[in-house]
């Protein structure tokens, strides 16, 4: 329907929308106060997935299902969705920040000649205009952004927006529009899976444990992994640790790594260089453990312990175990 707020669905590639969609749909619902629709480009949409999107507040799910949509290729996705946008004239197009959505939404905005606010952390309606908030300059400043016209296109940082409460009473109407599927010039050769850590994905995790230079070496991350297994956290690292070769780059938190915004961030032996803070400053609760009482991370920490992480980590892990086994 014209003027709807569209939420592009990020899924697990197995037919289920990712949990971050509850945040995107929830925020869109608060802004729209009415029509929120999900748009799902996928090679396999499942009934359960559609039900889930409805429960999170989508009144309609546009299902664009085609084998050509996996893996994501901009040359395929962009013309397909642009065709639907031209027909339906949505007022806003939202997506979560994930690797493919980042590129897709940027390319789509260029195709539509529309503005894009990437990695937004807040929205407000000012009169009839949407205003987005996004961190800039390593998160040292917040920028308020406005659009020249609709559709307002934005991506949302995961873990920042309040998720929609799932309601099984709500259900979505399903629409399967036919759109032209272009043939891409680029061809998938293979997908190389990373060795699974068995822990949550860094950018999606509600709790993140991070180890810095104070970890002293790659062999010591095992103590953080033990704690992570107890509390269901992801394990990241600072640039110092990554540049030293202790952890692969995909685990780096910071300006030249991943931006995270967990409910709880625990930093061990992390000094808190600006470039690290840029990637975790919007975490809700920050805990820092460092030997150096002058470490800059204590300036933004909610709770700090000045001490030796090699004593604190095992003791804290035991305390978490006791708490969670109760």
């Amino acid at each position, binding site marked *: 329907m014209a003027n709807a707020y569209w939420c592009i669905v990020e899924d697990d590639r197995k037919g289920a929308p990712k949990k971050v969609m509850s945040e995107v749909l929830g925020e869109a619902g608060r802004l729209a106060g009415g029509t929120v629709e999900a748009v799902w480009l996928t090679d396999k949409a499942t009934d359960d997935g559609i039900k889930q999107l409805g429960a999170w507040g989508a009144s309609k799910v546009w299902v664009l299902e085609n084998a050509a949509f996996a893996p994501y290729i*901009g040359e395929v996705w*962009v013309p397909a969705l642009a065709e639907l946008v031209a027909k339906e004239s949505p007022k806003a197009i939202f997506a979560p920040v994930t*690797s493919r959505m*980042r590129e897709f939404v940027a390319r789509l905005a260029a195709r539509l000649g529309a503005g*894009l606010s990437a990695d937004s952390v807040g929205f407000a309606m000012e009169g009839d205009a949407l205003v987005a908030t996004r961190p800039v300059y390593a998160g040292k400043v917040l920028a308020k*952004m406005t659009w020249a016209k609709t559709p307002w296109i934005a991506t949302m940082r995961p873990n920042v927006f309040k998720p929609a409460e799932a309601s099984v009473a709500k259900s979505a109407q399903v629409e399967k529009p036919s759109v032209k599927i272009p043939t891409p010039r680029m061809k998938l050769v*293979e997908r190389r899976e990373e060795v699974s850590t068995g822990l949550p994905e860094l950018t999606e995790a509600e709790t993140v444990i991070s180890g810095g230079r104070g970890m002293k070496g790659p062999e010591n991350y095992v103590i953080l992994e033990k704690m992570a297994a107890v509390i269901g956290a992801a394990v990241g690292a600072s640039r110092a640790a990554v540049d030293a070769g202790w952890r692969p780059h995909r685990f780096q938190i910071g300006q030249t790594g991943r931006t995270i915004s967990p409910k709880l961030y625990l930093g061990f032996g992390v000094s808190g260089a600006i470039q690290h803070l840029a990637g975790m400053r919007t975490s809700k609760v920050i805990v820092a453990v460092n030997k150096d009482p002058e470490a800059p991370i204590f*300036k933004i920490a909610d709770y700090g312990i000045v001490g030796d992480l090699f004593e604190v980590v095992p*003791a804290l892990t035991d305390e978490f175990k006791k708490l969670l086994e109760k």
Partner: protein
Amino acid sequence: MKIVVAVKQVPDTATQVKISGADPKAIDTAGITWIVSPYDEFAIEEALRIKEKRGQGEVVAVSLGPDRVKEALRSALAMGCDRAIHLNDPAWANADTLATAQALAAVIKQEQPALVLCGRQAIDDDMGAVGAQLAEVLDWPCASWIMDEAVDADAKTVRVGRQVEGGLEVFDIPLPAVLSAQKGLNEPRYPTLKGIMGAKKKEIKDVKPGDLGLTPGAPQLMVKKLEALPARPPGRIIQGEVKDAVKELVRALREDAKAI
């Protein structure tokens, strides 16, 4: 093979950033140290490596911005780029990502390179959109966040690994194409003294919208204003023996912060 690298000049990460007293939409640029955005250095390095491996070719650095941007282009030349193009006009002062992509695309259409490389994002506004938007304006294929690449012997195809959640997707992409560099692609070189001296003699060409047949339109996304970060409530250092401190921390995380 000709390669264009898109470069952005940004404030150094460690530099103090203050909102301008005169213009709440801008930062105070006095005293800022400017650098080439780190991801763009990966792009420059990769372009130079492709040229060196092939034993021939040309690497052209392009940047949009005011006069100070020449310094960033000079750094790119010092690393080894052959020449530079500076999109330098007040009409681009408020360029958003799309206007930037359109300007870059116009230059690229004139230059007709086989490959365009850029960083995955610039570390000032962190928008991460220009590479993909450039590909869209040019109607070229693109891959973002690449971790490795290999151009085939005929310079017809590039094989790239793009980083995605949980792995790497490897694609064969016919050239021309746009690629955006992720950290891990390479280790950028430092300019040598010879490189720095040589860069002074290399060409930096100023380009105006008229030279490209462009009339920059109004931006689609505007900064309404900049705001200082809200202060975080003061934190609490938990004192005492380790065993007591961790007990108190866990209690506080559960009962006060409700974070676990």
